[in-house]
């Protein structure tokens, strides 16, 4: 930065020197368009393996659901007192997954963290689809799915409202609002990119993108309105995201059961949600990077930043987890203490310890640069973290049912059967299928924001002559 090409150039102080680049700044705008639009055409074969694999899982889940619907919930090994099984645990898991999309797309937008730009689009899509999956779990869990609309608060001719005291009625409202806002936010942020797709498409695809891009021309007036609206939506989405998982936490905190009746649950759940969501973003980052040849955009520096963010959140989660244990341990509620001891030593002790190790110790792998930059290791670590967070939800729900207040109902034998496991696998299939379809139909990297990145950097650096590209473009095929 010390060499000057222009005698009027001011020497840049070291603290203003731009840090290692997130993406190669020498990519031209046309190149960005070409690369991203290519993802809508022919992905690598792995894409189809994942897509059809998840379609198969989804069909299996549909079969399980039809069987359960026709026969009754008893086929899912539910019993008294194990009334919820894995459905609610997995519901919380999916709700949690949905939070990091908002973190990346809205919170980091407001904080002007530029590195989010190439990856926020798919994170936001992950938010939407995991919320849909979570909604499915609420339905699958109901004894009478066909009456689910009783839970929704809407004026009706029967004058029958839901019970507004119940956290489940709050849930229905909060999730509905969050899902609607997420879809609008995702779609709205995509409009300029859809216009690019429209300009490059032919045939029925063109018709589709013409409709979807809502007549976007890219005029100054449109951009000005777009910016304001997008920022407003982002500001609206952030409190919604926090409130949704807080409300899911109140499903437990409001109830009276030992192990659930904890005031620290809402922040604990939000931290857990961000944690599992970040881990899921790392997983999808790696998959997309490979299948759609996004090596230019989903770069190692961005992965590193994502890993650091995940590590920070994992430590917050660890702290809140510890706070929960400590407040129970030093509290006066003997039942809650017994429930905690049961978790650590009872039937599900192995899972409890696995959760603590996966959730609090494995993230320390993220502190090593060698691991952070090694993609296969990151795949393994992110999957492990997500497994740990799923077990966390399992450990919140199940042991309390197994070891509640009333000794006569203590059970030690409960275990889910194939219907429950099938439905959970089916939900993963449904999510992955939708996500993969999304990435094939819509641009999963935000073209216009990546262009901003390149543009701003080029202007900010100003002085030095263009340097050769540091990140080689991948070979075709």
């Amino acid at each position, binding site marked *: 930065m010390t060499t000057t090409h222009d005698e009027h150039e001011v020497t840049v102080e070291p603290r203003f020197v731009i840090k290692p680049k997130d993406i190669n700044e020498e990519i031209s705008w046309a190149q960005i368009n070409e690369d991203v639009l290519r993802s809508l055409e022919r992905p690598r074969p792995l894409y189809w393996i994942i897509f059809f694999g998840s379609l198969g899982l989804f069909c299996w889940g549909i079969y399980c659901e039809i069987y359960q619907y026709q*026969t*009754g*919930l*008893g086929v899912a*090994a*539910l*019993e*008294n*007192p*194990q*009334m*919820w099984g894995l459905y609610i645990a997995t519901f919380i898991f999916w709700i949690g997954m949905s939070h990091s999309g908002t973190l990346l797309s809205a919170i980091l937008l407001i904080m002007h963290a530029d590195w989010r730009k190439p990856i926020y689009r798919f994170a936001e899509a992950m938010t939407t689809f995991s919320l849909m999956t979570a909604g499915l779990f609420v339905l699958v*869990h*109901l*004894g*009478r799915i066909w*009456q*689910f609309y*009783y*839970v929704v608060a809407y*004026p*009706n*001719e029967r*004058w*029958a*409202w*839901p*019970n*507004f*005291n*119940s*956290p*489940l*009625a709050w*849930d*229905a409202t909060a999730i509905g609002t969050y899902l609607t806002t997420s879809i609008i936010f995702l779609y709205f942020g995509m409009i300029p990119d859809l216009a690019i797709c429209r300009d490059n498409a032919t045939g029925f695809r063109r018709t589709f993108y013409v409709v979807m891009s809502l007549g976007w021309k890219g005029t100054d007036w449109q951009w000005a309105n777009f910016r304001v609206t997008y920022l407003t939506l982002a500001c609206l989405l952030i409190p919604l995201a926090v409130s949704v998982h807080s409300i899911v936490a109140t*499903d437990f905190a*409001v*109830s*009276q*059961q030992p192990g659930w009746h904890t005031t620290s649950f809402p922040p604990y759940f939000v931290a857990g949600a961000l944690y599992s969501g970040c881990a899921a973003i790392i997983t999808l980052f790696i998959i997309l990077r490979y299948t759609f040849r996004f090596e230019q955009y989903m770069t190692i520096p961005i992965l590193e930043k994502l890993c650091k963010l995940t590590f920070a959140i994992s430590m917050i989660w660890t702290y809140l987890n510890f706070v929960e244990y400590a407040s129970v341990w030093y509290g006066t509620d003997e039942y809650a203490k017994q429930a905690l001891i049961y978790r650590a030593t009872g039937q599900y002790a192995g899972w409890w310890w696995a959760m603590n190790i996966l959730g609090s110790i494995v993230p320390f792998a993220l502190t090593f640069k060698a691991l952070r930059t090694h993609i296969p290791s990151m795949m393994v670590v992110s999957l492990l973290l997500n497994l740990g967070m799923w077990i966390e939800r399992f450990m919140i729900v199940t042991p309390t*049912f197994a070891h*509640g*207040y*009333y000794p*006569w*109902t203590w*059970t030690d034998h409960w275990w889910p059967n194939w219907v429950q496991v099938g439905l959970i696998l089916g939900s993963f299939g449904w999510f992955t299928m939708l996500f993969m379809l999304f990435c094939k139909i819509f641009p999963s990297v935000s073209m216009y924001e990546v262009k901003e990145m390149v543009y701003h950097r080029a202007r900010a650096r100003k002085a030095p002559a263009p340097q050769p590209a540091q990140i080689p473009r991948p070979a075709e095929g």
Partner: protein
Amino acid sequence: MSFDNLFSNWSKLRQRRPQADQYEEAPYKWAMVIDLDACMGCNACTTACYAENNLAVVGKERFGAGQAMHWLRIERYWGEGTELTQEFPEQGAQFLPMLCQQCEAAPCEIVCPVGATHHTADGLNSQVYNRCVGSRYCSANCPYKVRYFNFFNYPDSAWPSPLEQQLNPDVTVRTKGVMEKCTFCVQRLTEAKSKARTEHRLVRDGEVLTACAQACPTSAIHFGNLADSSSQVARMWKAQQVQLSAYPQKKNGQIEETERLGEQVEFAPYPQKKDEQKEETEQLGETREKLRGYRVLEDLRTYPSVVYLERLRSTEV
């Protein structure tokens, strides 16, 4: 549907919540006393309940899987150090009939998303099958786990023809996916109340009994109207010094002035008061036998409507 209707409907929402001194002037408050000293675990009450309330017989396999539908169950407990013999495994067992406690501050009521379980004016914790969507949150929050879920469509299998002929026509048969629980035989109560109303009087003590109370051979289960201070149940509750609700009690039909101003409101939650009374009676040298009433998991402040009388009889008898 007009907006006027809509808003008036909003304003009436949950007006029927249990309120302070709701039963001071109410005609009915159904309650129960179960004398564990008299209970010998014969299961007659359970059988009567099955017959009265159209409970599905689920079969051995589903019973073992925890999917039984017994609204009233006899629990067996063995004291610490009891040796269980192969020959007489029941020996030394103590019994506790457990049914829905019809709590005044019921944990199940606040969490039901659709309000399918709610409090009736005569103190019952009722379950509306038509409204239930089967979220099972009520069961999750019930400390006693006395709510039973229709995991299967039991009417298909529980009463093969001609057994359906013995179903009680006053009680519905529940479909799959709804929660159900002890109703204190609400069909009998409704019938007795309407009969009394046609005769312009209140239901007399002993005029109506739940099926379990009727079937109990040792009269361990007492059922009656707590609002009627001369009823047997009310006298037993009073003798055991069980206070119904946590709210300040009315004196002469009115809350005292100081209490109304909130200056010296002494909430006298029942357990403390009972402990005080217990200490007093013990100081007076009286035996503890006179005060053996308790409610299950009282410290959760659910205020159940069922009082159990402690067992004093030794196991050898």
